[in-house]
């Protein structure tokens, strides 16, 4: 897909303006998934701004974000990186055959206490 189109589409979908970012890194500093991410929240912001999206689309970092909104709440510039990560993740899983989780994966993940909430949330985040 055309690089500029992809960038503009993600910005439109997320409602985020990455140009507001002042590169302070607070979002990444507060992110509970930081250690498990290859690209961190502040990198998502600058990479989307630069149209450097393909590496993000194939990164497992997309599936480590907890949607906890810590980065959005604490960003001093109101950038809300979580919304940008969500838009990139949706762009990835909306591609044909790109579902991260399928129903056949589920039985192996179950134990007798796991709440339904975990399954429906994972499906919403990982599957289209």
């Amino acid at each position, binding site marked *: 897909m055309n690089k500029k189109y992809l960038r503009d589409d993600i910005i*439109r*979908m*997320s*409602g985020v303006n990455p140009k507001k970012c002042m590169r302070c890194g607070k979002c990444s500093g507060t992110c*509970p*998934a930081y*250690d*498990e991410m290859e690209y961190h929240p502040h990198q998502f912001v600058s990479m989307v701004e630069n149209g450097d999206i393909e590496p993000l689309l194939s990164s497992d970092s997309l*599936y*480590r*974000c*907890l*949607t*906890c*909104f*810590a980065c*959005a*709440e604490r960003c001093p510039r109101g950038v*809300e990186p*979580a*919304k940008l990560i*969500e*838009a990139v993740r*949706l762009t990835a899983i909306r591609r044909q055959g790109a579902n*991260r*989780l399928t129903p056949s994966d589920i039985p192996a*993940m179950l134990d007798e*206490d*796991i*709440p*339904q*909430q*975990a*399954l*429906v*949330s*994972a499906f*919403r*985040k*990982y599957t289209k």
Partner: protein
Amino acid sequence: MKFSYFPGCTLKNKAKDLDRYALRCAEALGVTLEEIENWQCCGGVFTTAKDEIATKLSSVRILKAAKDKEQPLVTVCSACHNVVKQTNHAILTDKEFSDKVNRYMADDGRYDGSTEVYHYLEMLRDLVGFDALREKVKSPLSGKKIAAYYGCLLLRPGSVMKMDDPENPSIMEDMIRAIGAEPVIFANRNECCGGYVVMESPSLAEKKSGDIVRNAKVQGADMIVTACPLCRYNLMKNGADIPVIYFTELLAEALGVKEDTNE
């Protein structure tokens, strides 16, 4: 007082205690919670993308059902509350989204975002009142040191959820005081437990939830309370050797309506 009530999928399955005690306590406090008919699951997490419409319709229909009865809507699960409240906010603030959603609602009539949404804790604080609650307590939980674990969904985004100060909340501690126990404040009471990422990466949940339990214990907690089934699951699976229970169960104990059941 009469309100519409949305329990959500998990409260009918793995988190029956959250639902059951919420209803019993409401009755003891003179509140009637009328369950919305034919509700569907909220989906567990709010999708922030502006072009996601279908995934938000179940919440819109829940909100509309409460509006049709001219009742405020009460939720109790943190996740349901977050999804329903964020959806309502999107309808109120994003005209394009609201128009698109309402195209699906044609047969039922438009929904305009006017339903008031209260989490059960907000209902206690703002509608019942913690003073009135204190007067209804039958067996005060004196001497118990209880850590309130908020997690992320109840509080954030703060500008939308508007429940409490997202960085220094007090609503659950105030409830704990009202029922005679002592609240324990600890460092990561408003940080994420690992959430649904436990499905992908149990090690992440282990780290986050383990830290939460450790910090609560270091501050002297005998018990942790939460409003979220997934938080409870993650804390219990990852090192909680003190009880982790729903706030509604604690409330039921104090109000003297916690009978033993077999479920």
